């Protein structure tokens, strides 16, 4: 039941993102993140963090978005499995590009590119 609630918030968040409503998406992913943490569900926690990053990015809040994309990397480390990391590195680099920090963007793109062949 908890799990189902969690999944339905993730789904709602994705739908809001698709329909260009990143504010509402953000709220959904926040609830999902909370639920995932309570149930110690790392896989869904990662999805929520990614959704939060994407929602902020769509709103132009790049600095905050980076925080959540970094959270994805952190969860991967804790979970011992790296799914979603390639995308997270790419997204962080995209954010730094938007912020005009091409140096840092380049460093994260390098990590992203190194993982494209896996």
């Amino acid at each position, binding site marked *: 039941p908890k799990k189902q609630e969690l999944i339905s918030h993730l789904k709602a968040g994705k739908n809001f993102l698709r329909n260009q409503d990143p504010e509402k998406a953000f709220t959904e992913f926040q609830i999902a993140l909370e639920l995932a943490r309570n149930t110690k569900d790392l896989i869904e926690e990662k999805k929520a963090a990614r959704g939060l990053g994407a929602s902020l990015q769509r709103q132009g809040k790049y600095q905050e978005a980076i925080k959540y994309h970094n959270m994805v990397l952190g969860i991967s480390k804790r979970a011992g499995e790296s799914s979603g990391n390639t995308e997270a590195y790419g997204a962080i*680099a*995209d954010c730094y*590009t938007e912020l005009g920090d*091409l140096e840092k*963007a*380049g460093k994260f*793109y390098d990590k992203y*590119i190194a993982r*494209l*062949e896996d």
Partner: protein
Amino acid sequence: LETVPTIKKLRAYAERIRVAELEKCLSKMGDDLPKKTRRAVDDLSRGIVNKILHGPMQHLRCDGSDSRTLTETLENMHALNRMFSLET
């Protein structure tokens, strides 16, 4: 460093294609997909895009320590901008 924005645009270009084709595919496959199938299809779409992009992306990030590499990297960038209409 001049090539960094091109990396971002090329990524976005390919991602648009990936998502559009993935949604087309999922809508054909019906609703109650097993999670395993959903995941396999998602991985397929990412795998193809990532592996195709790998070469071009790498060639936008040559470190430019000698001038030949830098010139070539910029040529790659201009060609990619043209071929994927990334500047419009």
